[in-house]
């Protein structure tokens, strides 16, 4: 086993990986940019190495710098987490060239699965069902519009290098095609430095179902059942669960087999995920492969008992998988909710600020993978995900009750969060009766419920405001120590619902 590994990431995933390493007796090295020196992942590591860059993002993406730090500190392996360098084929190769183990797949798998066009081709060859659409980069817009008409609207424009909803646009009708194409291309260029766009049929009311796979260097490849990640806003997942209520044993086995075939087709090693769209008739279509650990990996861990981050490290160290397909038994039900600093009453607009008070829920079956602590700032430099709350119950009903209760116990004061929204989802009939698809938030969720939740406490909160006014009244008569008004008001704007 490795003695030291470097974790080339930040936030909750860096801490998650370091926890796994610590269990294996491995010393952990964090990397941090100056603005991140106080961050939880930095101060959670055994060792913390500063990386420099004009922006924090540049530093975390600086492959050469990170590799040379790993060499200097005798780290034998690098875990890339998700995002940043995790799906960068040349980084995987550079690690290999430097004789440092990249804890993830080889450059070929990243390369081929990272390119939507190449991935589609490879998957088609491997017998994996794919969504009808263009297989090559759109160059001729008139031709593209013709193909779109053939496939039939709505169609979906997607960045070849994309992921997580970035560079993605749904087009309802031909007249919107050009504008949407421009926007998708611009976003793709900014996000990935690659503005290749392709298109495919937009599957109406699909479920987002993904299969977790795990492969070792000895030719063993298994799947760890599915995750249902249909609850999304802006094409980004908010709530995930495992198992899915719409899969039966037969469909699970069928999708699992296809996922393993897909992984084998790209010579996959380590943990990866095959994402599918599942339509109402239980047809499933390959969406993409994420060649890394995913944000929502914990739900699979809880229903299978397999610690994916630990297995990742063990696989990278050359260990064979300690189980075969038939050893993977799923039991119970797990739900993950992402705690974003976003205002659900304002179109999920990110809400920056200081998290002046934070208290995570705890107890039986409650897990929080968090990236911040009390007093930390949520800045615009990084994604506004504060933590992931994951619960495990004996069945789905218990898991929902547990999530609802844990959300009530969660205290995050200082920025708006999606917590009330998540609670409302847990309490909604549609979610409870598992009648939801990827359009849930956009089309089916009743945001008025949130207004009602807010109004529920209004009377008490108004009384608190009056109490605070009365208590501070006398204080205000003395000259304020700091005569400049605080800036909280300028940070809060009204009428932002429609943007």
């Amino acid at each position, binding site marked *: 086993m490795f003695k030291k590994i470097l974790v080339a990431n930040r936030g909750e995933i860096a801490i998650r990986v370091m926890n796994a390493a610590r269990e294996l007796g491995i010393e952990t090295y964090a990397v941090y940019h100056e603005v991140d020196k106080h961050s939880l992942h930095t101060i959670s590591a055994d060792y913390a190495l500063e990386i420099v860059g004009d922006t924090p993002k540049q530093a975390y993406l600086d492959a050469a710098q990170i590799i040379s730090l790993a060499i200097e500190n005798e780290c034998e392996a690098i875990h890339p987490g998700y995002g940043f360098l995790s799906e960068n084929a040349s980084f995987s190769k550079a690690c290999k060239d430097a004789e440092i183990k990249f804890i993830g797949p080889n450059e070929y798998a990243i390369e081929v699965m990272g390119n939507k066009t190449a991935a589609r081709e490879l998957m088609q060859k491997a017998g994996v069902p794919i969504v009808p659409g263009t297989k090559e980069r759109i160059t001729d817009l008139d031709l593209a519009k013709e193909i779109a008409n053939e496939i039939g609207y709505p169609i979906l424009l997607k960045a070849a290098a994309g992921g997580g909803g970035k560079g993605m646009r749904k087009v309802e009708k031909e007249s919107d095609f050009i504008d949407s194409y421009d926007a998708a291309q611009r976003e793709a260029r900014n996000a990935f430095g690659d503005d290749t766009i392709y298109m495919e049929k937009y599957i109406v009311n699909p479920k987002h179902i993904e299969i977790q796979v795990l492969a070792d260097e000895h030719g063993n490849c298994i799947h760890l059942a599915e995750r249902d990640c249909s609850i999304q806003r*802006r094409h980004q997942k908010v709530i995930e669960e495992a198992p899915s209520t719409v899969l039966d044993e037969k469909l699970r086995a069928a999708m699992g087999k296809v996922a393993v075939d897909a992984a084998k087709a790209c010579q996959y090693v380590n943990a990866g995920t095959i994402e599918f769209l599942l339509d109402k008739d239980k047809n499933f279509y390959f969406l993409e492969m994420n060649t890394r650990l995913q944000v929502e990996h914990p739900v699979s861990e809880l229903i299978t008992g397999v610690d994916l981050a630990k297995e990742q490290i063990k696989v990278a160290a050359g260990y064979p998988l300690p189980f075969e397909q038939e050893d993977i038994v799923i039991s119970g039900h797990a739900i993950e909710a992402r705690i974003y600093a976003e205002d659900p009453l304002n179109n999920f607009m990110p809400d*920056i600020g200081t998290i*002046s008070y934070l208290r995570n829920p705890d107890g039986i079956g409650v897990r929080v993978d968090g990236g911040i602590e009390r007093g930390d700032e949520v800045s*615009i430099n990084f994604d506004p995900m504060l933590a992931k709350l994951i619960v495990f119950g004996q069945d789905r009903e218990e898991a929902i009750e547990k999530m609802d209760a844990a959300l009530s116990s969660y205290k995050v004061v200082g920025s708006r969060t999606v917590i009330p929204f998540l609670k409302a989802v847990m309490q909604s009939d549609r979610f409870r009766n598992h009648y939801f698809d990827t359009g849930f938030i956009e089309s089916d969720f009743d945001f008025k419920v949130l207004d009602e939740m807010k109004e529920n406490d209004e009377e008490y909160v108004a009384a608190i*405001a009056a109490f605070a006014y009365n208590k501070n009244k006398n204080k205000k008569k003395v000259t304020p120590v700091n005569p400049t008004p605080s800036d909280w008001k300028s940070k809060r704007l009204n009428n932002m619902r429609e*943007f």
Partner: protein
Amino acid sequence: MNNIQEEIKLVSGDKTYSAAFDHTDTSKVFLDEKLYEFKVLKEYNDNVSVISVNNKVFTVKINQDDRDSIEILTTGFGYNYEIKTSTSSLLEQFVRQSGKGKNKVNGIVAPMPGMVVKVNCAVGDQILENDKLVIVEAMKMENALGSPLSGTVKKINAIEGKAVDKGTVLIEIE
């Protein structure tokens, strides 16, 4: 309620609450004539405290500035109140009558810090409410910002490729 010292109004959107205080006991507040009793259970930095209101426990951040407005943040929600004392009410009435109401932003304001990706209008354009006039990228997402009102584009402060702070007026409309 013989010890009532002062009455104020708390205005939140279209709701108004009347609050009265017992000057012998600051732990009591009468809100719309209902009694609320307070205990401050714990205080943290940054104006965060745990307060029980008629024994119900709230962990809140209380932002108060000198202009008699208070923001209460709970987990998830933010509540804003304008405080109107009898003096301030009179004053406001006067101001309103003189036609000098509160600054209302006529135009599109950056809802968060970000970078202007595209401006979709020119000065003089006739636009309708909700028309998407400018695209701002923040936290790696593009956001198309719509106009809060119909009218004419008066001034464009947004420059493509430039960063903007939260609260910047990007497009002025009249």
